């Protein structure tokens, strides 16, 4: 038990744990967690605890990583509601958009860049019309909606059409609003925050 290599192997464990702490991206942290599990199993086996090493390898590395990957994948996501016609148009012919307003494809690319910066995933959910899009926002199916027309009817009666933004982006999450406000610099996008209706739920 007094071999010199034991000390070096045990020193690997805090080294990898420190590396795990320094990761910002959750997926990268998961991979480093796998390496930490492998090194921990090695340390336990070298110190003579074969049963602990087996548990660490089976539960700590395989099961924990898989469960965490599923959890991270389902929680770190922005669900963006768009209109179906708009989306199909943008999908089929991305260059067909008029010159004076940016296409939805450009907007989605912009959103994707922002999401990647915050390690989020962008998920597009198409809706058939504007009413169901707004309903999806109030029923918490989507986090952000994006439509070429205003959700409030009084915005449509604006006289100066030249200055009005061509896309209205509505979010119901305060943190997303703060992020998008800092990152979205395009004047063609109007960003609105809608406070979620109070359902009386206490979290």
């Amino acid at each position, binding site marked *: 038990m007094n071999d010199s290599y034991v000390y070096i192997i045990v020193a690997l464990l805090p080294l990898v744990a420190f590396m795990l702490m320094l990761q910002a991206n959750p997926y990268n942290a998961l991979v480093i967690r796998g390496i930490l599990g492998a090194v921990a199993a*090695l340390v336990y086996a*070298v110190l003579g605890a074969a049963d602990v090493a087996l548990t660490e390898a089976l539960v700590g590395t395989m099961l924990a990583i898989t469960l965490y990957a599923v959890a991270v994948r389902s929680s770190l996501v922005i669900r963006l509601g768009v209109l179906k016609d708009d989306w199909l148009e943008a999908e089929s012919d991305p260059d067909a958009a008029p010159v004076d307003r940016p296409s939805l494809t450009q907007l989605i690319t912009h959103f994707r860049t922002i999401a990647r910066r915050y390690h989020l995933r962008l998920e597009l959910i198409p809706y058939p019309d504007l009413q169901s899009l707004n309903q999806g926002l109030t029923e918490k199916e989507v986090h952000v909606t994006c439509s070429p027309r205003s959700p409030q009817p009084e915005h449509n009666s604006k006289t100066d059409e030249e200055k009005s933004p061509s896309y209205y982006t509505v979010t119901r999450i305060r943190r997303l609003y703060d992020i998008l406000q800092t990152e979205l610099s395009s004047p063609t996008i109007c960003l609105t925050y809608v406070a979620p209706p109070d359902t009386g739920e206490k979290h």
Partner: protein
Amino acid sequence: MNLMLIAMILALLIPIYEAWQDEDIWQKMLAFASAATKTSVMILVVSVLRDDWMIGVVGVIILSVGNAGLMLLAHLIKRMSEQ
């Protein structure tokens, strides 16, 4: 034989450094696969050195099951990057 194990520890430091430095997720997965295999082979070497069959069986199981966990994680990351 101790020198051989110390050389294996030094070889284990290479994928650990690679996993730390490289930002690409697939490079990290490669480093993870490398580190997982190296540690289980080291467990096998230690078991032979000490003539301990209990550690040897654990080393074999970790060598085979660790790769299954890696494959599950790789599938999830692949499905995520396809979207």
